């Protein structure tokens, strides 16, 4: 479909999602007494901050025409290992360095498999998530559930549970990660290269962009961001449950990225899209929780919205010759 077939009044997907979010905000503010308070709006963002940070990591992979299905496994096992090391007497600073090292190593293997072994990202990272979980769970972790005990009274605990001038740290860290990722993608040379690579890898390569090292960098960065998300999650609930690997969290992450308007075909979208998508889910879930909507119904509503987003995505960002040859991912 050539661009000339698009309706002239078309909105971008991001604009549509912003409109839906604002409509929900107004609806909830009018109908729910306790919705539009500073406390609740901060709580709303706090509740989706981990989702949002993982969304930033996922967006980075998707914009570069990849995907990282291993981020949830990576964050769970690397941070669980940090807690366990510290519970066993390792100073928390050293435990963090070791855990981060583990996360980066998993990212490095992802990047290597995608860039050099040339396995499609969806398979490489899907397999790597399982391998990382199985390896770390059986060789390094004593339990599925690791409590934060050794470092419970240190600055480490403050990361996910503290606040600065009334704003929860997790909200601030989400903002920080988003700003840094935005600046890197928009201003720095590797950031621009990731867009180029996502848009057209062959052309990018022909112009001399070092595609393979760039792919490795992309997955290592995604792993580092996932580690940050894991630390916040662990310190906010005093524990890591590695069972989260088996949950639907990674699909929720893809949901916020895609719904915000980052095209699965790569090269399109920005961190702003991730924030928009995250806020939509945040507002929706927060409102439904206050209204005490039954759990099953919440899932139906959430998944209908994913479906709508994907339909809109395919209408707004039509397949081109390249995607029809290479597939969407």
């Amino acid at each position, binding site marked *: 479909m050539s661009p000339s077939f698009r309706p002239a009044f078309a909105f971008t997907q991001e604009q549509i999602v912003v409109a839906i979010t604002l409509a929900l905000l107004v609806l909830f503010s009018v109908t729910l007494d306790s919705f539009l308070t500073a406390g609740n709006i901060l709580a709303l963002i706090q509740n989706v901050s981990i989702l949002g940070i993982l969304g930033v990591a996922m967006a980075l992979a998707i914009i570069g025409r990849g995907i990282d299905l291993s981020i949830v496994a990576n964050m769970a096992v690397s941070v669980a290992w940090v807690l366990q090391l510290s519970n066993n007497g390792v100073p928390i600073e050293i435990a963090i360095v070791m855990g981060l090292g583990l996360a980066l190593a998993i990212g490095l293997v992802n990047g290597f498999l995608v860039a050099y072994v040339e396995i499609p990202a969806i398979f490489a990272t899907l397999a790597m998530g399982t391998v990382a979980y199985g390896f770390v769970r059986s060789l390094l972790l004593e*339990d599925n559930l690791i*409590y934060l005990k050794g470092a419970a009274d240190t600055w480490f605990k403050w990361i996910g549970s503290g606040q600065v001038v009334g704003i929860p740290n997790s909200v601030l860290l989400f903002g920080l990660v988003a700003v840094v990722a935005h600046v890197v993608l928009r201003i720095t040379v590797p950031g621009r290269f990731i867009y180029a690579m996502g848009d057209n890898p062959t052309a990018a390569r022909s112009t001399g962009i070092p595609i393979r090292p760039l792919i490795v960098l992309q997955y290592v960065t995604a792993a580092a961001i996932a580690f940050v998300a894991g630390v916040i999650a662990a310190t906010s609930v005093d524990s890591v449950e590695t069972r*989260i690997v088996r949950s639907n969290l990674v699909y929720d992450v893809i949901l916020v990225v895609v719904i915000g308007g980052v095209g699965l075909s790569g090269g399109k979208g920005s961190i702003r899209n991730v924030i928009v998508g995250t806020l939509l889910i945040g507002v929706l879930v927060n409102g439904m929780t206050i209204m005490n909507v039954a*759990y099953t119904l919440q899932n139906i509503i959430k998944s209908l919205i994913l479906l709508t987003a994907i339909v809109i995505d395919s209408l707004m960002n039509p397949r081109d010759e390249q995607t029809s040859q290479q597939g969407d991912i």
Partner: protein
Amino acid sequence: MLDHGRKAMNRCILAAALTAIVGLSGLAAIAHAEQPDDGLVNESAAAMKGKKVGFVPIAMGFDLTEAWAAGLKHDAEAFGYDLSIRDPNWSVDAGAQAFSQLISEQPDVIVVHPPEIQAYTRLIQQANAQGIPVVTMNLKADANGDVFIGANWYDIAVKQTEAIVKSCGQGSGKSGKIAVMQGVLTNPTSQYGIQAIEATLKQHPEVQIVSNQAADWDASKAHAIAVTVLKANPDLCGFIGMWDNMDVGIAAAIKEAGKTGEVALVSSGGGNQASACDNVANGNFSTYISYDAKGQARDLMMAVRSVLQSKPAEPGTKSIALYTPLKTITKESNYPGACWNLDDVKKYGP
């Protein structure tokens, strides 16, 4: 015959060794001394030796299943039965597969820990039909099998609700608003628990459920929901949580809101030290109903011993219920032995 001969010879050697040692040092305590046959000990041991026991937990690696497995491992070693643990790691499909695989291997007893009420019902009936006795652990399935060992979820939720009524009901001077955090909706914990909560609250109309949500046993999800519920209901009086590992997320949300001690949190679980008593001691949980997984491990050991020694004539036709005695743990009743420690149970047995 051969065995008999060898046994006789062993006895001779043993006797000779005994004489020698006693003669040399005058010591009589020998580890390998054989117990005289009292008419039961040898017979019961022989009935268990070489038998096959299969165990399909929801997953290994968490307090409940690790404690139960520690009990079975202890007995497998002591009585020489063969124990096979198939870990489906939280996958219902993989669990069902492992269960049917076990059935085809025809063990002498299968121990299952059903992830939800319906998932294993047909398989339990199938195992029984093939003459294999089935022991179900802690989560009741629609088919009872031969022995059920575990908590009575209705009873637990009644006790939890009574505890919350004490904190939030008449005479407490509180709002009476409470929130319920369920785990997975198809799990018996929720299915029977929610009925018990609603039935108990009928007698206490002053206590109202303002939020009833599910968090998939995930502490982070429970945390997110609790943060919202606390903001939306500033006068919330308490939470009922359905599993300690998830409820720490609610506790973290209460702490963040600066309301520890003010908002009650009634939790339940297997009563291991780190999840239960530590959280009662530090004020995270105001009341905790323990179904003592260490005690369950012992119940399981005994049930398996009993089924191996005396196999039901027609497995599945007569079910025995061994409901776990519940412990209510509060700051006042948090005595040093109220909880158990997984490392110790693994090391020293239940």
